[in-house]
């Protein structure tokens, strides 16, 4: 028998069965993680595409009407007595009003 024939009758032998479960579990976990990551990215991208135009829309909209209750309160404070901190408090009250920045400061 020639050397090449002899080599051809042999092969490298190892049994991968003992680590089959471990390897396939790791592969499945990696695949799940990858799918979750892709899904998260897709949701984030959709959310960004959906929300970004809304932000521009609100930002360019007319300022919302002021809260009459807050206006009355401010008027009372002004009438009651001169107060050095009044301007700061009024400003803070206005800042805390809901709505985009341009609407909040539109009246100042």
């Amino acid at each position, binding site marked *: 028998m020639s050397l090449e024939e*002899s080599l051809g009758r*042999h*092969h*490298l*032998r*190892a049994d*991968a069965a003992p680590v089959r479960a471990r390897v*396939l579990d790791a*592969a*499945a976990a990696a695949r799940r993680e990858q799918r979750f990551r892709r899904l998260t990215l897709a949701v984030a991208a959709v959310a960004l595409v959906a929300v970004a135009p809304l932000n521009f829309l609100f930002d360019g909209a007319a300022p919302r009407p002021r809260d009459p209750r807050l206006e009355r309160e401010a008027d009372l404070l002004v009438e009651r007595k001169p107060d050095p901190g009044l301007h700061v408090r009024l400003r803070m009250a206005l800042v805390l009003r809901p709505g985009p920045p341009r609407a909040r400061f539109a009246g100042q």
Partner: protein
Amino acid sequence: MGDVDIAALYDAWASRLLAYMIAVTRDRHLAEDALQNLFVKLATGRPRMDDPAAYLFRAARNEALRVAGRRRETPLAELDLVAPREDAPDSDRSVELARALDRLPPEQVEAVVLHALEGLSFREVGEVLGIPADTVASRYRYALEKLRTWVSP
């Protein structure tokens, strides 16, 4: 492109790849870690399976070399890797062949292991090792010349 059926791929290839990875790392535990890394990459990547043997053996080699860091010197003969094929159990010269392979330079061992023992063509071995097929054939020829002087006919 759909996901590769990893379980089917494992059943078809894992034992051959593990054996080759042991031959590269010279350590069964390192080879098992490398095998796991390889299948994680196959599960999450887009493996090119038009020539599965060349692709998988090349990926296995890269992963085994990465995990091993550097080659260890454990002889093949001690790893009980070379064995007679199931269809030729009466021609067991595995110990003699393994000892002879241990005397070859590493690049010639790879050529013999992949071509003669794993049955890859010179072109496929070239793809695995990243060298031209002619170079593989040359290494194989030199290896056989040496082996003929060491292995009894």
